């Protein structure tokens, strides 16, 4: 999965916690009128009522249905539970269809509603992908996200120009005269160009004549972890461990996850991943040892002078 789609769930977790971020993370496109958004969100909630055992009436009557849907923990719990059902994700899965349609509505807030469930979908999908179960429902949702991302990247890769301190930057000066701007900057490709047509083909998986191996009973819990998956996982874990607003449960779970991931990278002897996971582990340790002085506090003394 691409880098952008992975910062998205991170944005979701932060956005879900508070009101004010909305405006900054999901700027409304000018051509979408309020009533349009309202209707779409309202429709989404209506169709959800036929899928979930119960949808709180406050959702249908809300004036801001999309953001209510995003923040309603009860509904989220129900959706998560359905996604984790052993037979979820097939081609005829109504919930997957709902997620697909909701995402296709191109409402930024409804996008967030779908993205909120991306970690669960990805997790369930990856652990089942080699069991030859029908997963076309999940794949449809994932491919919808993928093509959205492909379109928004416009054929560009996501790159990072590693700074070179021998040149001045906005945050520091050097004595050296600025060289010609054709510098030896290191260009890192975070996520290569997405192929617009590579998408539909993965749907054919399972039909090929060779993959007919019949060992379905063997539940493979260890998933294949290429860098394309590992890198976004690391960024998400970084967010859970080092981001603001630490949720105790999330933090503990993230510590457990990073420990597992570190061991996994040892098993794979994946050096790059060893560095990244090792540094997060080390940071957790350093954070627990730090004395947390608040430097914005005034120095207290019994003698107060003017």
């Amino acid at each position, binding site marked *: 999965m691409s880098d952008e789609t992975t910062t998205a769930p991170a944005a979701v977790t*932060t956005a879900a916690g508070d009101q*004010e971020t909305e405006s900054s993370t999901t700027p409304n496109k000018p051509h979408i009128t309020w009533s349009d958004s309202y209707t779409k969100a309202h429709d989404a909630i209506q169709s959800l009522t036929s899928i979930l055992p119960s949808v709180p009436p406050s959702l249908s009557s809300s004036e801001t249905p999309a953001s209510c849907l995003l923040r309603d923990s009860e509904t989220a719990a129900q959706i998560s539970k359905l996604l984790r059902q052993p037979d979820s994700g097939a081609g005829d899965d109504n919930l997957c269809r709902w997620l697909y349609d909701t995402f296709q509505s191109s409402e930024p807030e409804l996008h967030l509603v779908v993205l909120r469930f991306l970690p669960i979908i990805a997790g369930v999908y990856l652990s089942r992908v080699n069991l030859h179960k029908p997963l076309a429902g999940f794949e449809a949702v994932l491919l919808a996200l993928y093509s959205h991302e492909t379109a928004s990247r416009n054929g560009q890769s996501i790159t990072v120009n590693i*700074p070179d301190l021998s040149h001045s930057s*906005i945050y520091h000066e050097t004595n050296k005269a600025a060289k010609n701007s054709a510098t030896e900057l*290191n260009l890192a490709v975070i996520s290569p160009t997405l192929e617009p047509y590579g998408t539909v083909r993965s749907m054919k998986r399972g039909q090929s004549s*060779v993959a007919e191996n019949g060992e379905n009973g063997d539940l*493979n819990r260890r998933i294949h972890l290429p860098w394309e998956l590992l890198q976004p996982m690391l960024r998400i874990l970084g967010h859970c461990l080092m981001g603001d607003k630490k949720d105790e449960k999330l933090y503990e779970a993230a510590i457990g996850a990073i420990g597992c991931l570190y061991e996994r990278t040892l098993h794979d002897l994946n*050096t790059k991943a060893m*560095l990244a996971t090792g540094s997060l582990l080390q940071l957790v340790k350093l954070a627990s040892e730090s004395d947390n002085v608040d430097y914005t506090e005034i120095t207290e003394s019994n003698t107060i002078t*003017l």
Partner: protein
Amino acid sequence: MSGNESAESSQADVDPSVRQVCANGICMQTDVVEAKLDEGNIQEAESALREGLSLNFEEARALLGRLEYQRGNVEGALRVFDGIDLQAAIQRMQPSVTEKQPSKKGRTRSVESVPCVSQHAAGLVLEAIYLKAKSLQKLGRLTEAARECVSVLDAVEKIFDNGIPEVLVENKLQETVSRAVELLPEIWKQAGCYSEAMSAYRRALLSQWNLDNDCCARIQKAFAVFLLYSGVEVCPPSLAVQIDGSYVPRNNLEEAILLLMILMRKVYLGKIKWDPSVLEHLTFALSVCSQTSVLAKQLEEVMPGVLNRIDRWRSLALCYSATGQNKTALSLLRKTLHQHEEPDDILSLLLAAKICSEDVFLAAEGVKCAQRAITNAEGSNEHLKGVGLRMLGLCLGKQAKVATSDFERSHLQSEALKSLDGAMALEHENSDLMFELGVQYAEHRNLDAALQYARKYVDATGGSTLRGWRLLALVLSAQQRYPEAEVVTDAAFDESTKWDQGPLLRLKANLKISQSRYIDAVEPYRNLLSLVQAQRKSYGPFRNAPQLEEDRVNEYEVWHGLANLYSSLSHWKDAETCLEKARALIEYSADTLHTEGMMLERQGENDKALAAYINALLVEPNHVQCKILLGALLAKMDSRMLPLARALLSDALRIEPTNRVAWYHLGLVHRDDGRVADAADCFQAASMLEESDPVERFSSII
């Protein structure tokens, strides 16, 4: 200040554990004032202070507020501060509008902009506003707190038009300013207003607040952490802040890395103390974007004595190994594993073994490392035993390739398989291991087992890796099941993107060629050439980006392969054109000379062919195909050359024991020399190998 000091010393008999307020050289205990405050009588408390210390209204209020704040009564402090019209006080402090120059946020500071009001008064008011902000923050009224904090900063910017002059500022005022600068982004973060937090950080770092080194470093680090982990991507700094060609980061990650690098440099310059978390954040940031070579440079720059040397060597080894500089990584690991350092460090042992497993000449060293790792895989490291066995198997397999005798080779090969099987017993879900076992069995020509593992691997990876499909197709081709191999190759096309399809196209062509369908093989080659073209256009300036290199189609190989194909079709002219293209890319290449020789030989120009083969061997002394062809040609040309031919062919077989063509020609040599039994053995070997010959060498996948 000095007045205060003398006042304090004159009142030295006052118990320092008792709270007191001092001003204008007088000190008084606060018990009376505090009692009045507790009764809710602010005005009486205020007048008590004004009388006791000869203060004006604002001064008294500011002191009272601070007293309340310090007593932990933030609500009381707010009530006191609300009594002062702080905004009016700020207004009074600003330089008159006519004098005001357009504000310049440059790095140049001019001393001329001395404010017209006393800094003391300013410090008093600003501290009051700051404490108001802190009180509001503690009460959870974050937006209001931020607003107060902003007003402190706005006021400072108005008072000091060109940034705070270093020499002319009063201590207390500076302290308040620094704290406010540091507090504002924290409040915005608490309030969940991330884009405001981002602007507050940039304002803190890009304006002149005359922050001390520690304070500035703290803000830089907090900002870097925010940029790295907040998950919020807000707009990068505007180009307006750029000063003559300086570097402006374009996204969060770039900005975070820049700040962390600056912090590292401040440590070397002795400006701030070493903070291990800065290096860890930088490690995370750089490894996530695969720039471990930059990280290595940073690690090398760390002053001696800061990091444990073994930790540093190990981290450096990880960095270099991740960038593919395995030789450097290995020499660092050897230092770590030196008997006086940490010879039993399991991580270094495993990594060293892995690096050694990729080079035939290091394989023996790798075997030792892997064995030591297995011995040390106990206690909390027991879970790494499987990894040790896997590395041992890989090293033994590699070592088998340079074995000096058949006996040694088959011994090493079976030991390798035993090791890998042992690893499999411990890690039966490890897909990499499935692949490696597949390759190992394939090279051992146990094709049934190889097929089984190749299938398992494709299954476990959900068909997402190209090498799985390739191995499967090659094993099927070795079993002479060409149609199935083609089906697999087609499936692989469906599962991959066009940039990755180079090896598949080549495989497809080779499958056609093996079935003597030469004309059909031209099409995949045509596709390969257009892929090369597209690649050249699309990568453009990023050509040297190392992480892309491995995925690229090798243009030389395409022209060379096509030349071979045309020469099989006896299209000499086309073949020559392709060779010309190949020569333009690599001027002297054994492969080009090899094809040239073959073409000449088939056209009956034996002497020229001979010269081409010999030249090829001069370029690459271990070129197996040329050794074979040279041996065969010599044997054919002159029976006196049979011993030389035999030596050449044996040599080829030493390098590549499964080469059926070499066995066949060796058989011919034996026959011509009258050693019929030997010849029969060779022919038998050749025929057996032919039944298990893949269209490309198995090792080409790794």
